[in-house]
């Protein structure tokens, strides 16, 4: 295998892993936007919260590094579930306290509140866990399982971390699609997204649906944060800001409100991020992705797969 191809595959692998994390976050953005028509600015910070909270849970449990198999099978799921519950719960609380009272106000009020919330959360994280990079313990080894199989160099990898990523996130995403597409609750969610007033009139408890949506979105973001820590090994208080905006770009790319679109968009943006990190380097990934966001909103606001909401002023 040529070196260029190996490098490409390595970039693809990074891109897919970014994409997976972004997808989990983007799903939260798009689902919430679909129902309450607001951009939950603080959503990215739930991702950060998941990272740090899972770290704290691990600290309490004092696991050995790397995790022995029993821990992976028994404790890791518990940590994931606990983080998901806490992050989801936080999101529900945020909605209840800061967003719900303003639902009827001007369009800008909930947005300004969300900005304030995001800012407050970020700064709180910096205060509690510091402003510098925080290391996540190397719980899952990075041994290259396909070493020597494809080539002599160690460029193309497939590690236990990749297995973890797949095992956790694919069932989650499938589960979510099934939940939204096939269950009664999911149908209620889709109905509320299409027409909140009408949904209320046919007996759907819209407030509860909104709370559930926020919970699911938050939980996904929390899982994303944990996975990110396990996979990439480090994080900072501000990671949610950047990843959040990238995830939002993914949601817009796929079509706001469109669940499949969010996942597709996330993988595309993940690839863009990985490629740009590698081939261009430095801070240009941000410039490229943010420019993409602006271009999307100007030229194709409905996204690739079509949006359920209007982005333009009607």
């Amino acid at each position, binding site marked *: 295998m040529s070196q260029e191809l190996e490098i490409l595959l390595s970039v693809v692998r990074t891109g897919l892993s970014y994409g997976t994390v972004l997808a989990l976050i983007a799903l939260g953005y798009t689902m919430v936007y679909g129902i309450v028509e*607001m*951009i939950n600015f603080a959503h990215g910070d739930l991702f950060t919260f998941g990272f740090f909270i899972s770290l704290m849970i691990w600290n309490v449990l004092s696991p050995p590094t790397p995790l022995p198999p029993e821990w992976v099978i028994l404790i890791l799921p518990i940590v994931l579930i606990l983080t998901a519950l806490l992050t989801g719960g936080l999101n529900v609380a945020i909605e209840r306290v*800061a967003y719900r*009272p*303003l639902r009827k*106000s001007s*369009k*800008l*009020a909930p*947005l*300004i*509140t969300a*900005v*304030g*919330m*995001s*800012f*407050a*959360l*970020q*700064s*709180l994280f*910096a*205060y509690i866990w*510091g*402003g510098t990079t925080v290391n996540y313990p190397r719980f899952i080894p990075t041994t290259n399982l396909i070493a020597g199989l494809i080539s002599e160099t160690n460029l193309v990898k497939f590690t236990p971390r990749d297995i973890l990523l797949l095992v956790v996130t694919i069932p989650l995403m499938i589960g979510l699609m099934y939940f939204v597409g096939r269950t009664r609750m999911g149908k209620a969610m889709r109905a509320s997204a299409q027409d909140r007033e009408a949904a209320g009139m046919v007996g759907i408890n819209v407030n509860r649906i909104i709370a559930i949506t926020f919970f699911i979105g938050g939980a996904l973001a929390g899982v994303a944060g944990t996975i990110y820590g396990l996979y990439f090994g480090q994080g900072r208080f501000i990671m949610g*800001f950047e990843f959040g*905006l990238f995830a*939002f770009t993914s949601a817009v790319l796929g079509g706001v409100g469109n669940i499949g679109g969010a996942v597709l968009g996330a993988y595309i943006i993940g690839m863009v991020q990985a490629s740009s990190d590698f081939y261009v380097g*430095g*801070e*240009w990934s*941000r*410039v490229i992705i*943010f*420019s993409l*966001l*602006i271009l999307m*909103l*100007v030229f194709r*606001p409905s996204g690739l797969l079509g949006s359920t909401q*209007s*982005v*333009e*002023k009607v």
Partner: protein
Amino acid sequence: MTSQISSAKSLLASAGAGWNGFMTAVGDGWNKIPRWAQILLVIVVIVVVPPISTSLERATNFGLLGQLNRALIYVALALGLNIVVGFTGLLDLGYAAFFAIGAYAFGIMTWPTHGLMFSFFVAIWICALVAAFFGMLVGAPTLRLRGDYLAIVTLAFGEIIPTLVRNFKEITIQIGGWTLIKDFNLTNGPLGINPLGKPDFGMVEEVFSLPSGTLAPGVNPNFWYFMAVALVLLVLFVSKRLEFSRLGRAWRAIREDETAAGFMGINVVRVKLLSFAIGASFSGLAGAVFASNLGSITPDAFRFQVSIFLLIIVILSGAGSVWGVLIGGVFITIFDGVFLAQILPAIFPNSDVQNLRWVFFGVGLIVIMLLRPQGLFAPAQRTRQKPAVSAKG
């Protein structure tokens, strides 16, 4: 539990009403004073500040005049943001980018390494124009977007522009085989640029036969205080003139109902772009003054926190109220610079209280939106506005 909540609510309501009453009383009192007395009062206040702060300084060592200068710069910026957010109702989350453009435009024009060496008095106006241009550039993609998407686009620009500034250290432009520009250092990247140009009073010195350099302001806080005051007065003047003018009405109509405004004959595209342009031009001026005062600028002065801080000033003070933003801007910036940044860390020396500053402001935004969205420092919702013509004809 509910009874406690409702008594808390009524307490807040009466506090709010009391505050309203206070603000209205102050406003009414002010309006009763004849014009000449108002102007005299303002001049007196402006002039006594430096000596008062110097004497306070001996007691407290907070760098009060410097804090006030910083506050005045932020007020000028906030008044610019007020045009976009307060008058026109467009949520701009990346406003610090225009501040950066103003400052860096000034820097590029007066950095010895580039050798352009514009005069301060010429450069500041060019900075205003450059910033206005960029204002339109940022505004143009947002014209058809809903409020929240507009905000995101401005945020994206707010991130892109400082990032570009940080990275324009070695610009190389190649087309095909031709190298047009190689390794051009525009902004010196993360290190920032210095020294920067100062106002040159050489001609005045000649007229009064003073030795060259006597009137050089350097970083003299008194000089820069008066410069900042002049800046704020200019920006205040323009804001007040525009507020109730034809353009100001058009801006506010767009804020209230953009579609209806279009039906009433307002060219919404043009008026929105003007809002971005004029708002940004204030930052251009403020950026230039800021840069010249410090004599050096780095990209760090224009991060996202600055955008949010400016937004906080506007929202907390009362978006759309020029006087509110003036008072609120001074108060909030000094509160932040003196109390939060200096007094608080002195009381709690161990913890990282710096970060709590931002938590405080973030929570402040939320609380204001929930409890008092019209802001703290705006005169109580006016049902009577000063007519251009009095009832007596």
